[in-house]
């Protein structure tokens, strides 16, 4: 059920928001800036079925945004400029965020290195706890979070979608069936659900 809270956590779900400074040093020769390297890497990184983020079993949604500078609102507002660009990461997950980050380090070591080696103070992925501490040092807390299915884990969501699809098929195929057959078919449908994995 939909729910909201004044924190990062709403029921079982957690929103992790980090702002990580990107290296802003002049590249050697004609090499692209670190900000451009991150953009190029994300442009090449597959999404959908082939996304490396699919290896993370608790991650619902995740985005990376490069904040190059801050928007100007025109007169009479003042203007802020950033000295470094920042990499904004927002991840919606179920369960413990530190476990999720450790899982990223273990399952996506190459990708994490390729992204965060362009950021200030990146400790590498040799020690997952150091990377967790690094992420924590860049964390921004939510003041208000909202979610439509805050109590469900990603596994439960996948399972529910699978069961719904199979039950839709069952219901279509069993229209107008006599009561005895309907009951028997239903029992075997339930047994089928118990014995198959999502």
């Amino acid at each position: 059920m939909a729910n909201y809270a004044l924190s990062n956590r709403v029921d079982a779900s957690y929103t992790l928001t980090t702002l990580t400074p990107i290296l802003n040093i002049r590249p050697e020769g004609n090499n692209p800036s670190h900000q451009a390297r991150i953009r190029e890497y994300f442009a090449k990184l597959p999404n959908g079925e082939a996304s490396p983020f699919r290896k993370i079993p608790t991650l619902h949604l995740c985005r990376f945004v490069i904040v190059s500078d801050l928007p100007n609102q025109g007169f009479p507002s003042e203007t802020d400029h950033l000295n470094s660009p920042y990499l904004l990461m927002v991840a919606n997950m179920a369960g413990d965020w530190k476990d999720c980050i450790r899982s990223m380090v273990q399952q996506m070591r190459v990708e994490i290195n390729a992204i965060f080696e362009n950021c200030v103070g990146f400790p590498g992925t040799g020690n997952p706890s150091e990377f967790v501490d690094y992420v924590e040092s860049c964390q921004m807390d939510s003041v208000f979070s909202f979610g439509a299915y805050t109590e469900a884990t990603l596994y439960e969501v996948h399972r529910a979608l699978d069961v719904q699809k199979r039950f839709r098929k069952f219901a279509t195929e069993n229209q107008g069936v006599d009561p005895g057959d309907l009951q028997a078919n239903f029992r075997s449908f339930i047994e089928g659900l118990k014995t198959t994995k999502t």
Partner: protein
Amino acid sequence: MANISGKAAAITVITPMKWWKSYFLRLLFRMIKWGFFAKVQEHLIQLSFIHFAHWSIVKRGQFPRLSDDQPPDYTKYDYLVFVSNFNGSWDQYIDAFTEVIPMGMDNIWKWSEGFPGSVPEGPFFEYIKHNQFAAAYYYNATPGAGATDITSALKVNEELYEFEKSSRDMSPVEFEQAYQKFMIKVQNHLGETGLTEWERISAEGDIGAAELATAGGAK
């Protein structure tokens, strides 16, 4: 199309606030939680097309500085960061927000510099577009299912579990009657999921673009 992943779309909006105004906003969120704005609470729950959304406030001086070599970023303003994952088009989303909770939107963004009000929609659209950042990468674990699809699937599961438990010892005739009642209860939650033709073409286009970029980079 990094702001779209399957059926989900991403919106990321960053707006400046005078530092002292951010305390009013924090208080407002607390008041929503405490039930001062019952209608806003109710409408938020009804915004079924949102997977997850949140607001964060980055205080002046809170931009992380992780090395002595990194010049500090001490801004004049606090910054309100709004992040949402929703289904449908950007226009539909902003439109629904302003239609359903205009007072809520006004109360949340009126502390931000240059906010024109959520009604009429034109200036509000422009304000959000001006302060919006495109995602460089956007991942969605359930690309074929919208937020409503997921809540429907969870509902079907819950009801199916209850029905299975309660119908174990019924006679065939009793079972048939109970099954019909069960179907009436869940029939609105059995819609098809999966990507539309347009979404499939778009996703294939993204994969193709990634492959082209990889091939180009390898040369």
